[in-house]
C-alpha cells in the first residue's frame, strides 16, 4: 500500500516536472526578412537561405568563431596542408550524430562518406545527386571550387584528402562557408532509393544545433534544439523564423513582443530604436565596402593622376552624414578593418579641392571633363542610397570642373553593363564571404576578375603579383605582409574611391542574451538564450 502511495506521489511529481519543463520551454522567435529558397545551402546564394540552413541545421568542416572571422575546427578536428600547398588532409570529428526526425532515423554517425557526398554532389557532374533540384551550385562555381579542386578522396572513415590544382590559402576559410555544409550520405541514399531525391533538399537532415521540424511556405520555419549536438545542446528549446518581409512590420512585431530579434531595420527607425527602453540595439561594422570604381580602361581614367584627383575631390564625411546617416565609417582600404591584414598605416586621400585641381591640371585636364557616375537602383548593406551618394559626388566633382551625369539601370542590367565595362565610374560594393582578404582583393581587383567582378577593369601587375603570391603562402604572417603591401599599391594607384564600411544594426528584445552579430551578416542562434 505504501509502495502504491509512493509510486503515485512519484508519478505526480514526474508529471509536474514534465509540465514545468514544457511550460518553461524557451521559444525564440526571429522575424526573418524573407523565405528560404530551399534547405540545401549549396544550391542557393542568398543570405536568407543561409540563415535558415547553414548555421542552424548544418555544420561545416571548419567554422567561423562566433561573432568573428577566425576559422576554427568544426566537423574536422584538424587539417594538414602539404608543403606545396596543394594537398589538404582533414581529420574528422568522431561521435557526431545526425538529426533523428519523423522522416529519418540515422543508423550511423558522421564520417568521411558524408564529406564526400556533400562535395561530390557539387563537384562531380556524374554524381547521382548533381542534377537534383535544378543542379546549379552558384557559390561553389563562384568561388572557383570546380576548377580549383582536382580530387576528393577518402583515406579512411575519418580522414578526407582534398587535392587542389594550385595552392590556394583561402581554401580553409572556404570550407567554413555555407555551400560547404555537410549532409548525411545515408539519408541521401534512402531518399534516392525511395524515388524522392528532391525531398532531400526540402526536408533537411544535418548535424547542426537545431533540427528542422516544419516549414510553412512564406510563413514560418520551425526548429527544435538538437539534444545530441556535439558542442552541447542549444540553450533555447524551440526556434521559429517568422517570415516578415517588411521592415516596418518587423519593427512593430518586435515592439509588440511577437519576436525577439529582427534583421535589417529601416535606417529611419534607428533613432527611435535607440530610445526604446525595451529594445537592445546592437551594432557592428559590417564586413563590407562601398566604393566608386573608375573604369581604368577608359580615358581619362587611364591616368593615375586623374583618379587621385577625383579621389581628393570627394567629401566622404558628407556622404557618411547624408547617405549613411551616421551608420557608416569612412573607408580608406578596399578591405574592412575587421579583416586581418587591414593596413591601418595607409593614409587616405584628404578632401582637398585645390590639390585635386592641381593634379587634374598636371594630368592635362585643367578645365575638367565630362563623365558619368553610375548609381545602383537598389539599397545594399554597403550603400543605403546610391542615387543620393551619386548626387553628393556629382556636386563635389563640379567644384573641380568635372561634369558628371548620373546614370542608373535596373539592377540586373546594371550589373551586366558594369561587368561589360560600359561605365566611366560606377558605384558598387561587396560583402565578404569568408573573412579572407583574398575574397576582397583578388575577387574585386585581381587581373583574373577583369570582365567580371573587377569593375575598375584594373589589372596592375605589381599588385596582382602580391595577391597571387599571398594565395600560395599558408603562413598567415607572411600573407599579412603581402596584403599590407598590396593595400599601399592600391591606394597609390586609386582604381577605386573607397567610400564607406557600413554599420550593421540588430535590434532585439532585452530578454535576449548571448547574441553576437556575425560579421558575415548571417544570423546565428546557437549560444543565444532568453532570460
Amino acid at each position, binding site marked *: 500500500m505504501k509502495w502504491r502511495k509512493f509510486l503515485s506521489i512519484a508519478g505526480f511529481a514526474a508529471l509536474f516536472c514534465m509540465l514545468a519543463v514544457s511550460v518553461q520551454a524557451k*521559444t525564440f*522567435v526571429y522575424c526573418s526578412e*524573407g*523565405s528560404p*529558397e*530551399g534547405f540545401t545551402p549549396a*544550391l542557393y*546564394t542568398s543570405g536568407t537561405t543561409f540563415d535558415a540552413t547553414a548555421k542552424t541545421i548544418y555544420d561545416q568542416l571548419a567554422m567561423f568563431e562566433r561573432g568573428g572571422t577566425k576559422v576554427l575546427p568544426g566537423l574536422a578536428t584538424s587539417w594538414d596542408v602539404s608543403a606545396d600547398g596543394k594537398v589538404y588532409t582533414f581529420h574528422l570529428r568522431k561521435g557526431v550524430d545526425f538529426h533523428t526526425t519523423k522522416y529519418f532515423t540515422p543508423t550511423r554517425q558522421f564520417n568521411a562518406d558524408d564529406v564526400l557526398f556533400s562535395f561530390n554532389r557539387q563537384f562531380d557532374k556524374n554524381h547521382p545527386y548533381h542534377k537534383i*533540384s*535544378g543542379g*546549379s551550385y*552558384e557559390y561553389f*562555381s*563562384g568561388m572557383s571550387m570546380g576548377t580549383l579542386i582536382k580530387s576528393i578522396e577518402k583515406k579512411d572513415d575519418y580522414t578526407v584528402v582534398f587535392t587542389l590544382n594550385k595552392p590556394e590559402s583561402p581554401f580553409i576559410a572556404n570550407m567554413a562557408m555555407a555551400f560547404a555544409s555537410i549532409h548525411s550520405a545515408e539519408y541521401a541514399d534512402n531518399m534516392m532509393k525511395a524515388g524522392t531525391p528532391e525531398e532531400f533538399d526540402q526536408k533537411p537532415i544535418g548535424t547542426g544545433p537545431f533540427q528542422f*521540424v*516544419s516549414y*510553412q*511556405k*512564406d*510563413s*514560418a520555419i*520551425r526548429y527544435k534544439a538538437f539534444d545530441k549536438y556535439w558542442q552541447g545542446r542549444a540553450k533555447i528549446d*524551440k526556434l*521559429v523564423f*517568422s*517570415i*516578415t*518581409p*517588411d521592415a*516596418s*512590420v518587423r519593427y*512593430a*512585431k518586435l*515592439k*509588440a513582443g*511577437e*519576436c525577439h530579434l529582427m534583421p535589417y531595420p529601416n535606417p529611419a527607425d534607428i533613432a527611435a530604436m535607440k530610445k526604446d527602453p525595451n529594445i537592445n540595439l546592437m551594432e557592428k561594422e559590417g564586413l563590407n565596402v562601398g566604393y566608386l570604381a573608375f573604369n581604368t580602361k577608359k580615358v581619362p581614367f587611364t591616368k593615375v593622376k586623374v583618379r587621385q584627383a577625383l579621389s581628393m575631390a570627394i567629401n566622404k564625411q558628407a556622404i557618411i552624414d547624408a547617405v549613411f546617416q551616421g551608420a557608416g565609417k569612412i573607408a580608406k582600404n578596399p578591405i574592412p578593418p575587421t579583416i586581418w591584414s587591414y593596413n591601418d598605416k595607409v593614409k587616405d586621400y584628404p578632401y582637398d579641392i585645390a590639390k585635386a585641381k592641381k593634379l587634374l591640371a598636371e594630368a592635362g585636364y585643367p578645365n575638367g571633363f565630362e563623365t558619368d557616375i553610375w548609381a545602383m537602383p537598389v539599397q545594399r548593406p554597403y550603400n543605403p542610397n546610391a542615387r543620393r551618394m551619386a548626387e553628393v559626388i556629382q556636386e563635389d566633382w563640379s567644384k573641380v570642373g568635372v561634369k558628371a551625369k548620373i546614370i542608373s*539601370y*535596373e*539592377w*540586373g*542590367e546594371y*550589373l*551586366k553593363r558594369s*561587368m561589360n565595362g560600359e561605365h566611366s565610374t560606377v558605384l*558598387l*560594393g*561587396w560583402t565578404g564571404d569568408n573573412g579572407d582578404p583574398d575574397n576582397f582583393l583578388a*575577387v574585386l581587383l585581381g587581373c583574373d*576578375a577583369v570582365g*567580371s*567582378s573587377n569593375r575598375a577593369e584594373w589589372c596592375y601587375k605589381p599588385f596582382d603579383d602580391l595577391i597571387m603570391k599571398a594565395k600560395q603562402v599558408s603562413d598567415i604572417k607572411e600573407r599579412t605582409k603581402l596584403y599590407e603591401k598590396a593595400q599601399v599599391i592600391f591606394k597609390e594607384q586609386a582604381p577605386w574611391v573607397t567610400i564607406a564600411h557600413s554599420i550593421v544594426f540588430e535590434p532585439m528584445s532585452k530578454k535576449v542574451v548571448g547574441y553576437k552579430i556575425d560579421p558575415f551578416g548571417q544570423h546565428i542562434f546557437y549560444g543565444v538564450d532568453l532570460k
Partner: protein
Amino acid sequence: MIHFFLKRFSHVFPAFIGVTLLTFSLIHLIPGDPVELRAGERGIDPARHAAMKAEMGLDKPLYVQYFRYIGGVLKGDLGKSFVTKKPILEEFFTLFPATLELSICAMIFAVLVGLPAGVIAGVKRGTVFDHTVMGASLTGYSMPIFWWGLLMILFFSVHLGWTPVSGRLSALFWIDTDTGFMLIDTLRSSEPGAFKSAVSHLILPSIVLGTIPLAVIARMTRSSMLEVLKEDYVRTAKAKGLSSWRVIMVHALRNAMIPVITVIGLQTGVLMAGAILTETIFAWPGVGKWILESINRRDYPAIQGGILIIATIIIFVNLGVDILYGIINPRIRYTS
C-alpha cells in the same frame, strides 16, 4: 439557358489567350536578367551565363518560348520556379488557401458592412447617416492600402495591443497545416487557443483588404436602391399596404442586387490585386506576396503561372456572375 451558358462560356477562351500573351510580353518587357540577378555583384562568366540561360529555356527566341509555355499550359504544366526549382502549380496551391481564406473573410466583411450601409443610406437619403456612409466610403476607396495597413497595425496591434501584428498564427502554436486553411487546421488541432489566435490574425488583414470592396459595394447598393425605390412596382407594393421592411427587402433589394452582384464579381479582381499589398504588409503567406517576390526575382515561370491562375479564377468568377444574373433576372437570359 444552355445557349446562354455556352455563349458566355465562349468568351472565356479569347480572354484566356489574351492573359497569357499579355503576361508573357509584359514580363519580357521589364528590364532585368534573372541570371545576372542571381549572380549579384560577383558577376558570372559568359559561358556559365549562357549555360544557365539555356537551363532556364531563355536562350530560345521569344515566340518559341511562348509556344513552349502555351504547350505546357495546355498539358497542365506551368513549369518550375527558377528560384525554388519546384513546380509552379505546387507552389501556387500551397499558398492559395491563405489568399482564399483572407479574400473570403475580406469579402464577408465588405458585404456584411457594405450592403446594409448602402441600403440604409439609400432609404434614408440625405440624412446624416447617408452623408456619413458616403463620406466614409469615399475615404475608404481612396485609401492607399499600404498606409492604411500600417496605420491599423500601429494603432490596434502596437498601441492598443488588441490584435497581432502579422502572420497567420502565433509562433507559439506548432500545428500541422493539412488543408492550408488556418481556421480549419486550428479547429482540427488539439492545441487550445490556436483557433482564437488564427481568428485574431485574420481581423486586421480582412478589414484592410475588405475596405475598398466595402466602399464600392456600399456606394453601388445605395445608388441602385435609389433607382429602384423610384420604380412603379415599389410604389404599387407600398400602395398595397405592405410593410416598409418587406417593400425594401423583397421588392426593392432583390432588383437592386443585380448591379451589386456585378460589382461583387468585379471586386474579386480588386481583392487579388489588393492581396499583393495586404499580404506584404501583414506577412500573410499567400499568392499575392509570392507573385510580388517573384517579380523582384524575375522568376518568370512563377509570375506567368501565378497571374494565369489568378486570371483564370477571375474569369470564372465573372462567368459565374454572368450566369447568376440570368438566374436572378430572367430578362437578361432572354434578351441575350
